[in-house]
């Protein structure tokens, strides 16, 4: 069956005859890679331009439509030795990028102005205590005004806009007092300058804008960086579907291009790319990613099937039902949208605080003015003092307190293999006191492993080599332990039953019990390992049942022990059978476990815990975990999780190890305490500075020193988050699992790996790449 690859959905056309595509490239690690890819592509006919962005691992290619096409380019990159995945044009990301640049521009202008105004201000302060003449001081004030006014008008724009929007919606956010403070400070200074006064606050106003912009830019760039990485990962995970065309011809299309009503073919061993109804064909599907159930379930025409299930035995034709709302890219798009809109909740908390803070600040300023008037001061003096209060209380350190910690913490989490979906996840992770695990795919690895303790090694080797020719997911696990990695010749796959072939002149079969001539699985084989699925092998009159069981993540035992050591309550909520959950719980030393739970029961358990005042961290990967993840206080998912689940989780972790969970908790706790320290520092600063300002003792020198002093203090404190080591967990101390009693599965993978394997590989590659991405 020859299928055409169809990438047209990803190609952009800006001018006639010229096409453009963005590809996420995997495996780029050095300067040589850049040259190899770019030069290799330039040699192709029709390529106008090829440029690799090393930071983002994205390749932009432009070509003349008449001479080549996207499919050929992807094939060429593969020939050079790299994997490339098409990247959907993102409008949101482009806008986001534009916004980040704008902030950076504002920051540059504010920085330039602040430096120059400060230069003049220092001269004035020095002059005021020595022999500066009034004319010179006026000149310097006017020069400051000349620099500060246009700079503030330009660089203050992000705050003015946001404040205006908030007032329009009859709300208060932090930007309202900022805007009022900056405008009043500038207005007052202008008046003071015109009346030849000694003090002007141009430096305070512009410095305020500069520090605030720093906080805003840091916040935005962190979120942008994690999102870019998540986008690359998503595109490398995007699956392809075999779609029937109008004349019944098959073509390979990205799963995201599927539409409701499309007919698709799912071969044995492939993942179902979209939700739908089975139109024809009979098979068994492994729904472990959907329900947590590890034993394949039979499906027949008319049944609903969910994206992420693995087709085990027969080819299925599926009519797509709801691809639009559940495909990965759409979900990612929604996720991105949410991430763009949702400022982290701590910032929103700051906004809520602003609703209290702003009136208090404005009332204090008003009270100061009235108080001084009543005390007999002139109107001018009263207003000058009130404005000084406003400037001093502007939330400069508060605006830096949280973003700086977030930048540092997100960077460290990123290097530990954790990708944040939501900005306030750090804060919520830090408060978690109960950890709930799903079993399948979370505590255990998504792929099964052979338990060969009861099987003759010689038979196991033959069965494994025979399994190399099968597409069945269980066989893939078996095939991994073949030492001789050459498949037998002339093996026939009997769809839905197994594979058969000749070994040393005698027929050998691998597959279900009836296929191997067993009418009834022998009690010994069935009961020996009730937690496992069994695959049968027969050769030369001998029959063997080979159990395939779930394997714990390599460091699961050590991580669980460390979590208990951190006084966290652990619990397992699984949708799988009790006899599959029990041994795992016992092995890990988790005493509270529940099996056979429906998603609703999982939520009920979590709600009950939350009602008791617990803050629950839920870790799960199945589709059935998605609601529970949303219900929990905070949630984590492995990168192999079902797509819907990933979008529900607050953060994703990469790789085969469970240790990122421990890292996430440890780093977040530290980050949270740093945020609290920072807010405390900011409050102490206000508590010290406000009385001075109210008393009328503040002058521009004190304002500038206090403002920059507190901002620098807060930033330095946040940088402490970079210090300190990661908690260490030694996977070597792991108690032997069922799997570890076996010869370790060979590292080499079957060439015909199933989609889940590919995901794992790309996750591993992504983990490697983390070294390069800061």
């Amino acid at each position, binding site marked *: 069956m020859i299928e055409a690859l169809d990438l047209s959905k990803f190609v952009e056309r800006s001018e006639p005859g010229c096409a453009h595509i963005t590809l996420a490239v995997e495996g780029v690690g050095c*300067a040589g890679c850049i040259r190899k890819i770019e030069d290799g592509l330039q040699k192709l006919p029709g390529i106008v331009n090829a440029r690799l962005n090393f930071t983002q691992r994205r390749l932009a290619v432009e070509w003349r439509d008449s001479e080549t096409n996207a499919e050929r380019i992807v094939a060429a990159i593969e020939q050079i030795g790299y994997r490339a995945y098409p990247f959907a044009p993102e409008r949101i990301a482009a806008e986001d990028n534009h916004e980040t640049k704008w902030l950076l521009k504002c920051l540059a202008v504010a920085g330039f102005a602040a430096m120059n105004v400060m230069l003049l201000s220092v001269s004035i302060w020095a002059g005021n205590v020595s022999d500066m003449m009034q004319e010179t001081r006026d000149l310097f004030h006017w020069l400051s005004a000349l620099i500060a006014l246009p700079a503030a008008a330009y660089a203050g724009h992000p705050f003015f806009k946001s404040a205006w929007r908030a007032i329009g919606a009859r709300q208060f956010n932090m930007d309202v007092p900022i805007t009022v403070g900056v405008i009043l400070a500038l207005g007052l200074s202008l008046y003071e300058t015109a009346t030849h006064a000694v003090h002007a606050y141009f430096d305070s106003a512009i410095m305020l804008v500069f520090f605030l912009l720093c906080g805003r830019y840091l916040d935005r760039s962190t979120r942008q960086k994690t999102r870019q990485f998540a986008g690359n990962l998503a595109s490398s995970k995007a699956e392809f579907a075999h779609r029937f065309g109008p004349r019944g011809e098959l073509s390979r299309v990205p799963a995201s291009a599927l539409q409701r009503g499309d007919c698709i073919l799912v071969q044995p061993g492939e993942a179902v790319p979209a939700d739908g109804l089975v139109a024809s064909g009979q098979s068994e599907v492994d729904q472990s990613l959907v329900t947590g159930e590890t034993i394949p379930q039979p499906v027949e025409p008319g049944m609903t099937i969910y994206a992420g299930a693995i087709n085990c035995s027969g080819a299925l034709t599926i009519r797509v039902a709801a691809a639009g709302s559940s495909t990965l890219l759409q979900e990612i798009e929604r996720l991105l949208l949410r991430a763009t809109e949702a400022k982290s909740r701590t910032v929103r908390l700051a906004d809520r605080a602003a609703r209290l803070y702003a009136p208090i600040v404005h009332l204090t300023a008003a009270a100061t003015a009235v108080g001084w008037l009543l005390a007999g001061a002139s109107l001018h003096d009263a207003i000058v003092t009130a404005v000084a209060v406003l400037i001093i209380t502007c939330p400069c350190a508060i605006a830096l307190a949280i973003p700086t910690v977030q930048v540092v913490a997100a960077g460290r989490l990123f290097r530990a293999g954790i990708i944040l979906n939501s900005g306030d996840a750090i804060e919520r992770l830090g408060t978690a006191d109960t950890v709930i695990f799903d079993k399948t795919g979370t505590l255990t690895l998504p792929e099964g492993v052979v338990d060969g303790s009861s099987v003759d090694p010689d038979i196991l080797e033959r069965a494994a080599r025979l399994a190399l020719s099968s597409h069945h997911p269980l066989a893939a696990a078996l095939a991994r332990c073949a030492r001789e990695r050459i498949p037998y010749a002339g093996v026939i796959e009997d769809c839905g039953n197994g594979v058969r072939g000749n070994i040393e002149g005698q027929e050998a079969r691998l597959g279900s019990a009836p296929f191997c001539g067993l009418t009834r699985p022998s009690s010994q084989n069935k009961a020996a390992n009730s937690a496992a699925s069994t695959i049968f092998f027969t050769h030369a009159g001998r029959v063997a049942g080979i159990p395939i069981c779930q394997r714990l993540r390599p460091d699961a035992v050590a991580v669980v022990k460390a979590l208990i050591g951190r006084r966290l309550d652990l619990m397992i909520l699984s949708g799988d059978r009790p006899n599959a959950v029990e041994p795992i719980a016992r092995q890990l030393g988790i005493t509270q476990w529940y099996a056979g739970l429906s998603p609703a029961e999982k939520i009920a358990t979590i709600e009950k815990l939350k009602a008791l005042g617990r803050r629950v961290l839920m870790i799960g990967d199945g589709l059935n975990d998605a609601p529970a993840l949303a219900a929990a206080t905070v949630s984590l998912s492995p990168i192999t999780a079902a797509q819907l689940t990933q979008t529900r989780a607050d953060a994703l972790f990469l790789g085969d190890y469970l240790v990122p969970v421990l890292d996430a908790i440890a780093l977040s706790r530290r980050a949270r305490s740093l945020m609290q320290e920072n807010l405390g520092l900011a409050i102490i600063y206000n508590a010290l500075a406000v009385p001075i300002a109210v008393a009328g003792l503040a002058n521009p020198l004190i304002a500038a020193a206090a403002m920059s002093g507190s901002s620098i203090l807060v930033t330095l404190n946040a940088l402490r988050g970079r210090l300190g080591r990661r908690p260490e967990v030694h996977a070597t101390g792991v108690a032997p699992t069922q799997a570890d009693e076996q010869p370790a599965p060979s590292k080499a993978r079957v060439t015909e790996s199933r989609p889940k394997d590919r995901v794992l590989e790309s996750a591993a590659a992504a983990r490697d790449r983390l070294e390069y991405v800061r």
Partner: protein
Amino acid sequence: MNVLIYLVPMALLLGLTGLVGFIWTLRTNQYDDLDGAALRILPDDDLESE
């Protein structure tokens, strides 16, 4: 203090040059691929001997 008449504008002009330079680098997307830029100078393919 007459020296200020030309010293201050000169200082401002120098600062502005820096600012304009920075905005130019921003406009020409020079911050899009910082890691790549560090690596691209390494290959010697511009030397004639190769």
